């Protein structure tokens, strides 16, 4: 049931095989319609986040005005953001995301390499175990996670690093497994014959060839941990705001009677724009990491 898979070819690399290019040049109207439709849909996907920017640049005294655009524009939400301890929250989120990413790579690299290269008893069971973690999300076992990590008495940041690492392990194992499987073992053997040794073959041949997979796993884990909200909210309860992760800190702008929308969206942009740029880097490879386990 569990076999190896090749990393997905970049989207578009084989587009000529799916479209009908011969027909297209003779039908300029069709190309026009497609282009316009695609741009309209792209705009629909962009607009909510543009609204976030518009709101962040709206002066606080215009929050009660029923207008689509503000009359005046201001950067004050961005400059006053830092006095509420947002810098500390960014630091906390960076710690959690970087920590989880390092752990995932340290743990997933050997597991993915071993399952890609060797056939042994328990290999299928292990891959199934990894797959099953993709099925059970933190929301489903929040009570267990909360009670377990509260009993451990670890600092919340460390607990969040471990939890985020655990729930993103599956993605990393699957995508790295796919990349390692696509690198012929003969290549490593040849390098070893040429005197590189096992370690040399791994670090000078295999890891560089698997670099796109490693980068994808790295960025994906980082973004997932950066964006994670439910466990962060649960485990960082009662911490001082500047020590809470960014997603939780942003929610602190929601008061019981009023919401500080200007700061909320300014902080939201700070939290969102970097991960969108990072995600664009791995865009084409993410799907294979998410679906490889289920397909194989």
């Amino acid at each position, binding site marked *: 049931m569990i076999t190896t898979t090749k990393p997905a070819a970049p989207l578009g690399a084989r587009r000529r095989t799916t479209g009908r290019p011969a027909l297209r040049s003779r039908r300029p109207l069709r190309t026009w319609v497609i282009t316009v439709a695609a741009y309209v849909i792209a705009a629909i996907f962009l607009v*909510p986040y543009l609204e976030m920017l518009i709101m962040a640049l709206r002066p606080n005294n215009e929050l009660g005005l029923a207008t*689509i655009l503000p009359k005046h524009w201001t950067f004050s939400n961005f400059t006053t953001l830092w006095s509420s301890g947002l810098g500390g929250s960014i630091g906390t989120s960076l710690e959690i995301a970087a920590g989880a990413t390092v752990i995932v790579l340290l743990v997933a690299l050997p597991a993915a390499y071993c399952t890609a290269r060797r056939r042994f008893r328990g290999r299928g069971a292990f891959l199934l175990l990894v797959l099953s973690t993709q099925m059970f999300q933190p929301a489903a076992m929040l009570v267990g996670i909360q009670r377990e990590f509260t009993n451990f008495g670890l600092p919340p940041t460390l607990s969040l690093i471990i939890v985020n690492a655990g729930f993103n392990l599956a993605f990393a194992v699957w995508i790295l497994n796919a990349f390692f499987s696509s690198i012929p073992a003969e290549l490593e053997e040849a390098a070893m014959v040429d005197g590189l040794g096992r370690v040399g073959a791994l670090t000078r041949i295999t890891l560089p060839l698997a670099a796109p997979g490693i980068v994808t796993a790295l960025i994906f884990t980082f973004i997932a941990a950066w964006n994670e909200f439910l466990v962060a909210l649960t485990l960082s309860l009662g911490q001082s705001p500047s020590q809470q992760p960014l997603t939780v800190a942003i929610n602190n702008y929601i008061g019981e009677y009023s919401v500080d929308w200007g700061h909320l969206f300014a902080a939201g942009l700070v939290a969102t724009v970097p991960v969108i740029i990072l995600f664009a880097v791995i865009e084409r490879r993410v799907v294979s990491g998410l679906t490889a386990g289920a397909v194989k």
Partner: protein
Amino acid sequence: MLALRRMAPALWLGPAIALIGVVVLWPVVVMVQSSFQQIGGEGFVAGYNGTTNYRNLFHEPDFVSVLLRTVVWVVVVVALTVLISLGLAQLFNQKFPGRQVTRWALIIPWAASVMMTALIFKWALDPNVGVINVILHHIGVVKHLGSDQADWLGNPTSALAWMMAVAIFVSLPFTTYAILSGLQGIPGDVYEAAAIDGATSWRSYLAVTLPLLRPAILVAALINVINVFNSFPIIWEMTRGGPGYETSTSTIYMIDLKQGDVGQAAAMSVFNFMLVIVIVVVYLGTTRWKEQVG
């Protein structure tokens, strides 16, 4: 030496198994154990109380309606997501100038925190000044700003519809990309053969493309079912599951129970957990997963 070689995989896989054990497996054990204990909102364990938590849970007046709503939530969101994604994938698989730029726009809801997206829509639906209401007011759909009609999130039916729309919105990028990668796996000569047989584009889509996309659709739908069932930020940010529990799904209901009665919340979690397993097993069975995908 042979024994050492046999031990080797354990060393390579050990850290991964340990991590899964601590983060995924042990919480399940704690959760099941907690579901048979009497635990207050502060986490103080008063001792075992047998199946009381489960019996209390099944007798909650909102229990059945929350479950039914969860089913509707999952089915509607996943079905519409897959349907719309089929169209989007077809569109973004075409060649047109600036395709890469439009694809970057498409991934934004996927990359951004779902919590942020939910908050944007919560703001945009504000009855007095939310931008969606302002626009709807301009074009005459909303008669008066600040009226009940403009309070979309105050009415359970319209609130649920809007939250489903947001859930679909954030699920579209992944699903579209999964189907796009399925489309790329279809060799071009299949279409040429269909064209020679005189099939129109719509006929060849139904007869050729769709059956070949089946594995990609099945995988994407399954991943969406799990995600949407466990979805928390959208409903929590936009309505907190209210008024009452009228917009709660079982995940939101469990989190609300956790504030007051951890033991009963654990029972709800165990129930949700079983439900996910049942759904996945039934799904794998009815779709004949092994023949179609594996």
